[in-house]
């Protein structure tokens, strides 16, 4: 990896961004989502956080343009240059420009906006180009990138962390390392072939696997998962949870047990909780839920109860009409009852007892059958 000459970087960790205009190639929501997802790529491996503004100045201004567009680097029509961006700093610095003579797409049928945006925003944060062909910051666009399993290369992570360090592990960060709990007779064994989970949720780029009074936390930066008491991070939460999910755009994890649910941000249980699950729109006949999963692309949450499921619109904050539906109807191959579920890399992961199914929502089919414990590096 390389950084810009003089190593310009942002002197703050919370940055604002503004989408100044939109390409006509994609719906606005698709552009919004691609940019948010591209920023999340860097957010997950640094202390940086981003918030969007729709007026006035912003650290990172994102725009689409053709040919000469007011800076010293006119675009060149279709092909060749796809975009460019400026290193951290005031005014035009930090900004990212995309050549609107390209055909911008959400898949790889044209030029994938997420992929180019993740690269250009790497420049906006201070990375120059990388000579590693596997790196996102390699200058030439890789049409063969598997979007469903996109990951930063180690070179990208090393580069951005040379500027901003790793995500903080400060006391207010939810996962400040308390001592891992030694395994013993009364603690669940990560390598038990019959291992099942009560609930699973992502949390700021990690995955939390809840079981009885404990949880494993799986970070993609370390091989071994940590193992902790739930009460060591969230003393007021119950054990033996039913379900959990992270609403990533709110940086909130919702935790469910019985007919109640809690909201936590970091180690803080949010005021006004627990609330009753019926406030979400469940009928009185539902006494508890089995599992919950948030799809960050769709901004919808799936709630699984017995052989049925509901879908909750997080933008409208209401249960969608036409539910419940049979799980088998929309998730062919996924058998009730679902113990836990989460979404990662564009796939849905369903857990039932000691079995786990990877489901491709685009192909609407099960793509892998695994042991539930497969994420715990047994």
């Amino acid at each position, binding site marked *: 990896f390389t950084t810009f000459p003089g190593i310009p970087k942002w002197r703050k960790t919370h940055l604002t961004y503004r989408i100044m205009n939109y390409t006509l190639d994609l719906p606005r929501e698709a552009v919004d989502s691609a940019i948010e997802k591209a920023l999340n790529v860097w957010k997950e491996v640094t202390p940086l956080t981003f918030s969007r503004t729709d007026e006035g100045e912003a650290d990172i201004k994102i725009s689409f343009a053709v040919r000469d567009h007011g800076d010293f680097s006119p675009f060149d029509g279709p092909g060749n240059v796809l975009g460019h961006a400026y290193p951290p700093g005031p005014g035009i610095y930090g900004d990212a420009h995309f050549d609107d003579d390209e055909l911008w797409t959400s898949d790889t049928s044209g030029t994938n906006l997420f992929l180019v945006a993740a690269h250009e925003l790497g420049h906006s944060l201070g990375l*120059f*180009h990388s000579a590693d062909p596997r790196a996102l910051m390699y*200058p*030439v*666009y890789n049409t063969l990138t598997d979007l469903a399993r996109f990951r930063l290369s180690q070179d990208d992570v090393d580069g951005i962390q040379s500027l901003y360090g790793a995500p903080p592990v400060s006391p207010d960060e939810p996962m400040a390392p308390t001592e891992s709990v030694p395994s013993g007779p009364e603690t669940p064994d990560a390598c038990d072939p019959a291992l099942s989970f009560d609930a699973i949720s992502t949390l700021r780029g990690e995955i939390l696997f809840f079981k009885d009074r404990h949880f494993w936390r799986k970070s993609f930066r370390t091989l071994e998962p940590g193992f902790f008491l739930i009460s060591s991070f969230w003393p007021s939460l119950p054990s033996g949870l039913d379900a959990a999910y992270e609403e990533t755009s709110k940086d909130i994890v919702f935790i469910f047990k019985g007919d109640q649910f809690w909201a936590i941000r970091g180690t803080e249980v949010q005021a006004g909780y627990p609330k009753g699950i019926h406030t979400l729109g469940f009928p009185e006949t539902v006494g508890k839920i089995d599992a919950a999963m948030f799809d960050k692309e769709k901004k919808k949450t799936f709630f699984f109860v017995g052989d049925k499921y509901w879908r909750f619109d997080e933008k409208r904050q209401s249960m969608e009409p036409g539910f419940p539906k049979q799980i088998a109807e929309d998730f062919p191959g996924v058998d009730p009852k679902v113990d836990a579920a989460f979404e990662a890399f564009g796939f849905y992961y369903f857990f039932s007892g000691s079995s786990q199914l990877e489901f491709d929502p685009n192909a609407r089919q099960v793509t892998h059958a695994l042991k539930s414990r497969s994420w715990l590096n047994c």
Partner: protein
Amino acid sequence: YPADRAAEDEDIMELVQQYLENYYNLAKDTKPFVRRREGGPVVEKIREMQKFLGLAVTGKLDSDTLEMMRKPRCGVPDVGE
């Protein structure tokens, strides 16, 4: 045929000159690139580019190098200010 070949050469030299100026800090007033010349600033820049992009460092405009230069890419330079 020779006339077409000369025109094609002209296009390639233009492509190379532009690419090296845009991404490898080749001075804009460098004498037009002559394919047959072994040394000189342009050949050095071709080597630098081939090394950065993971190509065989030959200093020559082989097909891999020309193919790489025609691929869509980011407009930010690879080296230099």
